[in-house]
């Protein structure tokens, strides 16, 4: 469903950030697992481009709120050449940095939603 209002867009981004957070958690938890390849979720711009084209459900369970990872695609990260002998590609510092970005974006998201919600209530009241 294409996000048209501000609240729709905020809801979509909040879902995306939550999926990104769980992907980062998976990377950090598996930082010492041999053969584990670090994942990341597709960028939010790609998500918006994708949902702008209407999608038809070919199989029940492909779309909808209960799908795993809310329908966002998770793919292995591009490798910038840091590979451990155990074929593990997780760099802990990068993952923690990404987690910081997620936090900042999430705070901005909830602050925007809160502000516009209070403005709506203010205008409707009285």
């Amino acid at each position, binding site marked *: 469903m294409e996000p048209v209002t501000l609240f729709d867009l905020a809801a979509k981004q909040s879902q995306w950030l939550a999926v990104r957070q769980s992907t980062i958690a998976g990377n950090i938890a598996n930082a010492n697992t041999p053969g584990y390849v670090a994942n990341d979720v597709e960028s*939010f711009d790609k998500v918006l481009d994708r949902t702008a084209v209407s999608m038809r459900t070919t199989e029940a369970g492909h779309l909808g709120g209960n799908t795993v990872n809310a329908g966002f695609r998770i793919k292995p990260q591009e490798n910038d050449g840091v590979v451990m002998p155990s074929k593990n590609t997780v760099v802990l510092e990068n993952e923690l940095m990404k987690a910081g970005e997620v936090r900042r974006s999430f705070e901005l998201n909830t602050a925007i939603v809160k*502000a516009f919600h209070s403005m709506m209530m203010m205008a409707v009241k009285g």
Partner: protein
Amino acid sequence: MIGGISGIGSLQFKPALDGADAGVSPAQGGAASIGGSSFADLLNQAASPTLGTLQNAQQGSMQALKGDADTRQVVDAVMSAQQALQTAVAIRDKVVSAYLEISRMGI
């Protein structure tokens, strides 16, 4: 959503202002000639930036949610919108209550 808010904020002024204007223009005539504009125009001027400010805030927020906007600018825009909206709502409430009071006055 912004249309809804601005509708309440600025456009609904018009009937109330015209009604109030008809009732108070003799008294306000003095002030009007000093100010060079009617009371209604003054109120309109106070309320009309609201729509632009609100749209600015909405645009900025959508950009911020997509990921590429300066945080401080967005926060400033949203705060201006909140101030403008609060002002507009306060004016609306005052004008409505003034109109009601006038309409209750004996002729």
